[in-house]
């Protein structure tokens, strides 16, 4: 069974409502999630990521397709018979039970011995650094503490797969950043497969082993954070992850494994991707931080400079219709390197830009 994926969705389709208000939440989605993987479902709200999570948990039934856990179809099992546990977005802690009772709930339902339950609850409280708070009610805890209890309650059952539905979205920024590191190290230590749902690209990029970027009920791209950021396959992925310039360009021909393209403003660049026919009009995705500006060039004019601390974000006008966003690290004394109105030259290292499908 070693080859079986921890979680697998096969051609899963899920619709809500009836025509004409029919919503296709998942449209023929297939994903295989490996054991011990930190796997993220990333996308805007309504993209189907939470629906997929709920299908794995058994809280929804698919219209068609199959859900497998460790190679075994579970699509017809109710949630309480599936060996997965969920951390809900709202935490869903039982308000009438203490922290310890919350953590013990799953163990009691499975009929474990009293002393074993007590021992596991103790371990979990230590794991999430909540010792001494076992008698508190959820209402007496801060958001961050509730988050830890929800995590402990799910992990107490030693699930093979832990499902996390936007668990950090209710926390404030500092706490969220701290919890990212904790979640990641927790996943490494426990060796549990994490399926993590988020709309926050930064969360996805910093924590995941692999990311599935979803939109309109389909997986748009599946890959490592580096793949997704550096080699987006389409306009949606390039646009959703990070900031991107989309440039209309004319393909001139192949050159050293790259495609030479000419953009508005007359500058040429070497683009990575599958070569199109020479003379074709293509869309090129170019990250603002990969562009090098030279003073005194003739490609464009700086029309805006916005100071953002470490960097300055410039808008460089290439032609009447085309603006380019460029992110440049500030000088050591913190001053911006270019001024509004300055004429600049643009240099793009070979392969820094990508050709996109649609």
């Amino acid at each position, binding site marked *: 069974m070693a080859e079986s994926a921890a979680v697998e969705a096969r051609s899963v389709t899920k619709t809500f409502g009836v025509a004409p208000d029919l919503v296709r939440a998942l449209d023929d989605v297939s994903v295989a999630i490996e054991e011990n993987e930190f796997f993220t479902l990333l996308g805007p709200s309504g993209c189907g990521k939470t629906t997929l999570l709920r299908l794995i948990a058994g*809280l929804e039934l698919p219209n068609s397709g199959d859900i497998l856990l460790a190679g075994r179809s579970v699509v017809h099992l109710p*949630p309480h018979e599936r060996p997965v546990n*969920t951390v809900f977005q*709202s935490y*869903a802690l*039982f308000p009438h039970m203490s922290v310890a009772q919350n953590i013990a*709930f*799953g163990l009691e*339902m499975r009929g474990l011995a009293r002393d074993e339950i007590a021992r596991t609850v103790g371990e979990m409280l230590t794991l999430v650094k909540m010792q001494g708070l076992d008698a508190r009610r959820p209402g007496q805890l801060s958001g961050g503490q509730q988050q830890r209890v929800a995590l402990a309650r799910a992990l107490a*059952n030693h699930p093979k797969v832990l499902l996390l539905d936007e668990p950090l979205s209710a926390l404030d920024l500092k706490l969220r950043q701290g919890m990212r590191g904790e979640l990641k190290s927790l996943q490494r230590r426990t060796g549990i497969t994490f399926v993590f749902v988020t709309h926050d690209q930064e969360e996805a990029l910093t924590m995941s082993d692999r990311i599935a970027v979803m939109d309109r009920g389909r997986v748009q791209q599946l890959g490592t954070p580096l793949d997704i950021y550096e080699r987006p396959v389409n306009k949606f992925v390039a646009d959703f992850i990070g900031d991107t310039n989309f440039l209309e360009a004319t393909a001139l021909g192949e050159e050293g494994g790259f495609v030479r393209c000419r953009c508005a403003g007359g500058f040429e660049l070497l683009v990575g991707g599958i070569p199109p026919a020479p003379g074709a009009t293509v869309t090129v995705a170019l990250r603002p931080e990969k562009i090098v500006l030279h003073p005194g060039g003739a490609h464009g004019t700086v029309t805006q400079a916005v100071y953002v601390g470490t960097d300055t974000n410039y808008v460089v006008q290439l032609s009447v219709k085309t603006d380019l966003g460029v992110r440049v690290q500030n000088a050591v004394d913190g001053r911006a390197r270019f001024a509004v109105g300055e004429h600049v030259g643009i240099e793009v290292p070979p392969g820094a830009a990508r050709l996109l499908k649609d």
Partner: protein
Amino acid sequence: MADPRATLDLKRQPGFGPVAWFCLFMLYAPIAVLFVFSFNAGRSVNNWSGFSLDWYVKAFHNEGIQDAAWISLQVAFAATLAATILATAAALATTRTRPWAGQTGAYLVINLPLMVPEIVTAIATLSFFALIASLSGIRFGLGTLIITHTVFCIPFAYLPIRARLEGMDLTLEQAAADLYATPWQAFRRVTLPLLAPGISAGAALAFIVSFDDFTISQFVAGPGQQTLPIYIYGAIRRGVTPEVNAISTILLMISILFVSASFLIGRRRQ
């Protein structure tokens, strides 16, 4: 300078005070009079002749009152129990299921007794049981009163239970299922404890509605099934004494007790 809040604050509108005091006076002055004269030493209910607890002592020793109170309590407890169980089931069925055809209809039917004039219910119930008796010869005895009370108590029990269910986070039950609880365990360990304040509030309301009912009971009650309100009505026709005031005051106290309990329980853990 005019206070900018004045236009928004009802309490600052001209005439608010007098209207409010008039309403409160009309609501509570009659009850205050009833209450005060239950302690009258004389036989009059409008001529004060000194303080005494005699009428309470007399009421407690009156066998007619004792019997009526016993009937009322039996009916109220049985009707409350049945109505609360049915109302809980109905509230679950109208909130915890996928939307089904006729759901709005069911909601209306459950709450219909609140809108049908009591006298109509009374006469309809009377003829209904009379028909059953003439067709089959079955008589339910005190059961007739209990069944009738159960029916009109259901909406009173249903409303607070439903309100509580609607305010409850659905993901709690999903979390229980996710943590290996069977549907019954999830209900028993999560839904029911969280629903308890709503059920208690509903039961308290049902009890008091049954205990206080006059119109329907008057029509439906058979011989020897005199409830307390029916007894009081009869007593008044024999001549009003402060004894009636004393029983009414006790009824009022029981009502206040239950309604306050219902309110306090309902507010807990909200």
